[in-house]
């Protein structure tokens, strides 16, 4: 059965810059999301949005200062968490939601999925969740064939893990010993269904990968430093030619599946517990302050800087024009 990943993490062992960067990335992700929801409420953005609030630690931990631009990611359909951690400019992501030509799609609009930034290793995403699992082994195969030490990380939800593509992908990853890392964002629900209602597993989704002989574990995805550690190990394994890793990261969504979802199918007390006691940002902030590394005031200031950066990005995105009608006829072929 999958190991529950535990490590003693002492903040003193880390470069303070890394710690601050992790915190800042999480705050940026959350602020981005909150402001996007505001734009939605103002009627500027379509309601097809799945908020990523509550799971920022998983993305910041697995990407920030670990992945290089040349490493590939396939992000999932919840929030813009991984795209932001990978450094896609905020104005470009907002542009994709607002449909202005500032967006990565130059005005086609992208919503959560379909933003892409190949220069930063962000290769796009499928609207059919879980389809990225097949693409990921292809990208990893291409790196291996070329002889680079690039790694590919593929993110997907617990629900997406039940797609048939999961098994096709795991088989390839093991068979060809590919430099690919699976990060299953297990927030327990796929729309209204609890993971226990839709998955036949020993105990964890990660146990599936065990059957393929792929190293795997279950980790607290809301502990940003644990996420950092577990992903660092997986990246080293991939770079040394030792093949894939499967990480099941536990988290919970603070909001419904989509904006407007009554979210009445969950136990309110459970949600409250995640918000009060397992919020990745709140907890890391406490750790940072308790360690004496920084002060509350400093972090508040940092939050303000981030907010400023977000508002500027929105302004750039909003001020860019909408595309002309003939935009839809451009770019089908190279």
């Amino acid at each position: 059965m999958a190991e529950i990943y535990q490590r003693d993490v002492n903040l003193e062992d880390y470069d303070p810059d890394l710690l601050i960067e992790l915190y800042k990335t999480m705050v940026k992700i959350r602020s981005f999301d909150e402001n996007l929801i505001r734009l939605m409420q103002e009627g500027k953005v379509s309601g097809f949005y799945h908020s990523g609030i509550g799971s920022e630690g998983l993305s910041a931990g697995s990407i920030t200062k670990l992945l290089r631009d040349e490493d590939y990611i396939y992000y999932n359909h919840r929030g813009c968490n991984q795209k932001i951690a990978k450094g896609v400019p905020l104005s470009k992501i907002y542009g994709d939601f607002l449909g202005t030509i500032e967006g990565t799609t130059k005005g086609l609009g992208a919503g959560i999925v379909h933003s892409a930034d190949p220069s930063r290793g962000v290769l796009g995403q499928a609207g059919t969740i879980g389809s990225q699992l097949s693409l990921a082994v292809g990208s990893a195969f291409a790196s291996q064939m070329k002889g680079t030490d690039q790694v590919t990380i593929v993110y997907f939800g617990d629900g997406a893990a039940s797609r048939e593509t999961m098994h096709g992908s795991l088989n390839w990853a093991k068979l060809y010993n590919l430099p690919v890392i699976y990060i299953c964002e297990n927030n327990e629900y796929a729309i209204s269904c609890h993971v226990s209602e839709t998955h036949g597993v020993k105990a964890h989704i990660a146990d599936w990968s065990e059957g393929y002989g792929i190293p795997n574990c279950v980790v607290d995805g809301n502990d940003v430093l644990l996420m950092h550690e577990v992903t660092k190990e997986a990246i080293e394994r991939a770079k040394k030619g030792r093949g894939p890793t499967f990480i099941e990261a536990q988290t919970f969504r603070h909001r419904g599946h989509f904006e407007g979802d009554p979210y009445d199918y969950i136990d309110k007390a459970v949600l409250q517990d995640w918000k009060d006691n397992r919020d990745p940002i709140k907890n890391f902030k406490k750790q940072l302050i308790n360690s004496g590394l920084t002060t509350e005031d400093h972090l508040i200031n940092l939050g303000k800087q981030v907010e400023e950066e977000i508002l500027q990005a929105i302004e750039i995105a909003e001020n860019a024009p909408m595309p002309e009608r003939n935009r839809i006829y451009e770019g089908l072929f190279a």
Partner: protein
Amino acid sequence: MRQITMREALNEALHEEMERDESTVLFGEDVAKFGGINKVTQGLYEKYGAPRVYDTPIAEATIVGAAVGMAITGHARPIPELQFGDFASIAFDEIFNKMGKWRFMHGGQMEMPITLRLPVGIAGGAGPEHSQSPQALFMHGPGLQIVVPSTPYDAKGLLKTSIRDNNAVLFFEHKLLYDMKGDVPEEEYLIPFGKADIKREGEDLTIIATALQVQTSLEAAEELSNQGVEAEVIDPRTLAPLDMETILNSVRKTGRVLIVHEESKTGGSGAEIAAQIQEEALFDLEAPIKRIGSPDVPIAQSIHLEQFYRPNAQQIINAVNEIIDVPV
């Protein structure tokens, strides 16, 4: 007569048929407790419970494959749902080759009483993989019946017929029609397959339209009537089987034809309908057949651009005027 929405009409049909036949089994993603993402299956889980109503894993190929496996035992009448009709692509083999051909391939020894519900259409910025209308792909596949209702009345009667039918049915529901209200009698009724409905009578030209475009065409026809042009609007209601008789009778009367659908134009269902019209009634035509479909490019996510895909009443009016202007 009482007016209900298409969502309610579909829901009533499901309730009535599940009550009537204990071998019906309804499944898909979030269709049970949640009542479906479009709320079409509400109340069924509460009434019939598992195993007759259940939520599946997110695995479209397995959903349809399992439906086939259930159906061919002769013990079950599956009514699976895919959350978006676009995901038929994920289950393409299961639909195209298994639902459509299993019976024939095995010498006709089994039946395929499956009604696969597929919500389709452009609706509010859902993007290229959640907005398509893939009906025509399946006209090319033998063994599949294709139902495309445009009103609450048709939706209810056709869904009841689909569930009772012993052959495979793909049931396409345009998402923008779910909230549309219309007359639906309290009494039970069924609508046969292969029977087009003349939604509006007219002498000057024939508009053949499906799904949401029936409504758009009726709107355009009212406006055209003010200009003195009387359009006949025909809804085939099932693309397979296709009621060419009703269509040809109208074409022979009017001599002018416009076909309108939200499916992209090239290879859309209108291409097949136009081809059949010219095979049977070329010399009754007084003008070339025109088609309106969405552009042959992926559907942009942007709501601003989305408007340029869905055919609108003005486009229909303009096309009709061009057809009418062709001198006899």
